[in-house]
């Protein structure tokens, strides 16, 4: 910038603004980022909710660190909660009790922290479900899907390390399960547990270690991942739902400045308000009910927070023996006998591992099966991708069965059924539920697609019944308007792609497998209505049209 045409502001405010702008180039950033367009849809806002609850977590968490002492040194509680006065407990528990009963606003902040943690992981999950079911993970967004998945795991890690910190009975029971899972690992298990707990469980170090992870490493990784995630969102631009005027090359919506700056800013405070309201009105994790941790008692209704629930549920579903077959093996080695406790190892690691592996790999699996390597900025309506929606629902069902199993005792008491029966049913559903859900979801999707075809070709039922001179009754059909028709007819039509030979004319084994899956996914399909079909339908019953309906063509 040459000195001759340098802008000289007239007011003080202007001078300060110019001083800042000429040094950091803020106006350039605002100009570039402020004109960024985002499409408007309620289902796009869960990522935002996750981010806002995370900010809330940082703020309330910082407040809690002022008063929390992560030491496992033994103290006698002398705070103001009478039913615990004079009890021995760890400093961590005692300081959490002080936060709850003796620090002004402490209990509220604890509850804000815990409720927003539950909401943080919940909104992350819903956000991921939205991205999955609408196909927003497709090229070019595969890596961002993976970053999102890691964020979910880090969210769970942050939650679990935090759950364990107060050193009350519930958190101690949770750690005992982690200890059990660690010890179930073959050969290294006992060593790993000893390293982690600094000796035999519970030891005197684990709370400090979890505290370091909880307030430093895990949040730092989450912040880093959020930055990467948002950077990629800006680079890729936001996806949008299909509709007239929305193409793969544009984004239809509103600019960040002023619309989204205001909306998102307002929404930030709305989320704050909702969490504050919940935290003010509803109790969460009442550690004074559970009491200090002691390895001997376990309370009925001991569960992890919801996001770890599915692993706990899998543990509850797993039988220790099946008839005469024991899942606990003692394997003799030259150096002695090693145990392999499959009844712990299998449920603790396999379902969670499988779910996350398929989740991370899904964009590549789908690309491989469909041979679709195009960029997609337009989302799928879930019904228009029956195979994906069905796979997703199978996964959701598997997860939900395990999730329900974590509350099997409460299902038994609250619905007055036998706990054993609940377990047997859930075991059955664990295997059959996903298959049934896949079949049912695909059928529903295909039926909805057929209904869409029906509506496009024959219009919607107008509710007007006519009687012909012969006495026959017919219902008038109202033709859908062009905008609606555009939505119903324009979608990615995926078809079965048979195995194709490579350049050398050889059909490889993996190609055959791909073709098999492709056949399984796309053998049943409902094709979008073609213009000629539409014309034929119009010619066949144009006289059914209801007055007041403008059916003109739309420019694509």
């Amino acid at each position: 910038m040459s000195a001759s045409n340098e802008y000289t502001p007239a007011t003080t405010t202007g001078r300060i603004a110019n001083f800042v702008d000429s040094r950091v180039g803020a106006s350039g950033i605002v100009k570039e980022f402020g004109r960024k367009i985002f499409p408007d849809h309620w289902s796009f806002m869960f990522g935002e909710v996750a981010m806002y609850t995370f900010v809330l977590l940082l703020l309330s968490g910082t407040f809690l660190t002022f008063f929390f002492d992560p030491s496992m040194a033994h103290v006698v509680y002398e705070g103001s909660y009478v039913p615990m006065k004079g009890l021995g407990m760890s400093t961590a528990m005692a300081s959490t009790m002080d936060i709850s009963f003796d620090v002004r606003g402490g209990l509220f902040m604890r509850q804000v922290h815990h409720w927003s943690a539950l909401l943080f992981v919940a909104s992350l999950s819903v956000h991921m479900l939205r991205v999955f079911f609408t196909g927003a993970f497709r090229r070019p967004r595969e890596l961002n899907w993976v970053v999102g998945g890691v964020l979910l795991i880090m969210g769970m890690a942050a939650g679990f390390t935090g759950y364990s910190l107060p050193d009350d009975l519930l958190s101690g029971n949770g750690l005992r399960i982690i200890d059990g899972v660690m010890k179930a690992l073959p050969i290294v298990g006992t060593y790993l547990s000893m390293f982690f707990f600094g000796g035999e469980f519970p030891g005197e170090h684990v709370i400090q270690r979890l505290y370091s992870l909880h307030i430093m490493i895990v949040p730092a990784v989450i912040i880093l991942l959020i930055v990467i995630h948002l950077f990629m969102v800006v680079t890729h631009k936001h996806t949008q739902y299909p509709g007239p005027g929305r193409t793969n090359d544009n984004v239809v919506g509103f600019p960040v400045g002023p619309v989204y700056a205001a909306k998102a800013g307002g929404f930030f405070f709305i989320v704050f308000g909702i969490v504050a309201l919940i935290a003010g009105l509803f109790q969460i994790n009442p550690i004074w009910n559970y009491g200090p941790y002691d390895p001997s008692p376990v309370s009925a209704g001991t569960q992890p927070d919801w996001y770890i629930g599915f692993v706990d549920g899998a543990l509850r579903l797993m039988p220790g023996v099946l008839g005469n077959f024991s899942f606990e093996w003692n394997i003799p080695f030259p150096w002695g006998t090693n145990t392999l406790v499959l009844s712990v190892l299998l449920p603790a690691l396999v379902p969670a591992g499988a779910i996350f592996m398929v989740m991370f790999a899904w964009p590549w699996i789908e690309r491989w099966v469909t041979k679709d390597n195009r960029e997609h900025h337009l989302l799928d309506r879930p019904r228009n991708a029956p195979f994906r929606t069905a796979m997703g629902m199978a996964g959701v069902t598997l997860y939900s069965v395990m999730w329900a199993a974590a509350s099997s005792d409460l299902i038994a008491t609250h619905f007055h059924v036998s706990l054993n029966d609940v377990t047997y049913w859930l075991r059955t559903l664990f295997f059959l539920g996903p298959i049934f859900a896949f079949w049912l979801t695909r059928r529903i999707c295909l039926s909805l697609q057929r209904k869409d075809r029906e509506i496009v070709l024959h219009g919607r039922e107008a509710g007007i019944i006519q009687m012909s001179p012969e006495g026959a009754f017919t219902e008038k059909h109202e033709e859908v308007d062009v905008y609606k028709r555009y939505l119903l007819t324009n979608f990615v039509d995926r078809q079965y792609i048979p195995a194709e030979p490579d350049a050398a004319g050889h059909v490889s084994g993996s190609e055959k497998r791909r073709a098999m899956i492709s056949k399984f996914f796309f053998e049943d399909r409902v094709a979008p209505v073609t213009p000629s079909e539409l014309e034929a339908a119009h010619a066949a019953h144009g006289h059914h049209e209801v007055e007041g309906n403008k059916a003109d063509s739309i420019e694509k």
Partner: protein
Amino acid sequence: MKALSKKRRHPLAAVALLLFGLLITGSLYTAAGNISEAKAAETTAASQSDVDSGQKLFAANCATCHGMHAEGSDSGPSLIGVGAAAVDFQVGTGRMPMQMQGPQAQAKPAQFDDKQISQLAAYVASLGAGPSVPDEEYLDTTEGDAAHGGTVFRVNCAMCHNAAAAGGALTRGKFAPTLTGVTEKHIYEAMATGPQNMPVFNDSNITPDEKRDVITFLKTIEANGSAGGAALGSLGPVAEGLFTWTAGLGIIIAFTIWLTSRPS
């Protein structure tokens, strides 16, 4: 009626109809339940010496299952030696006479008044020695130590009854009930006699003083209410997670829809 019939194709019509049907069925069921309950509460009593009256009551109400002389039958256990405390608990909480056969007897409004219960207890106690109804001094919560009682409770009771005494599930439809609203006397008697599926905590296991501490703990947490807001049933993380996914996310989704439906 015309306005109603116009709305029959409304997307929420089926939901409204379902809700209406459920409401009707529910109210009828509740009404029917109340009527039969009212009948059950009416009983007649006679009184001579306590044991004799008790024996008559026993023969009329209990003998079908427990035998004419409380010797037991295929349908019910022998009551010789169970003591007055067991009778006072079972009959006093309405568990006996049993409303229906099931995994365990369920509490219902007591069928006999205090006098009749004491007569029944006197009769059963006369058959053989057993735990008696506790003295007032062991029920006085002003004397107990809530903190110690809490420790005893967590070690001995919480695995079935839940750390906050909200109750929990046992195998095959059995359950440990919530202890909220149970009288001091009945809590003591339950510990001393081990009703239904509960183990007996005799005086050498949990001393009478410790039993009083446990009662004091239970009554203290009951009186304290729930610090920090509604307790959501004191059921722990499941209730909290359910609340997050329903109410929490529900409110947030409502706001997202509102925000994106506003013209900018």
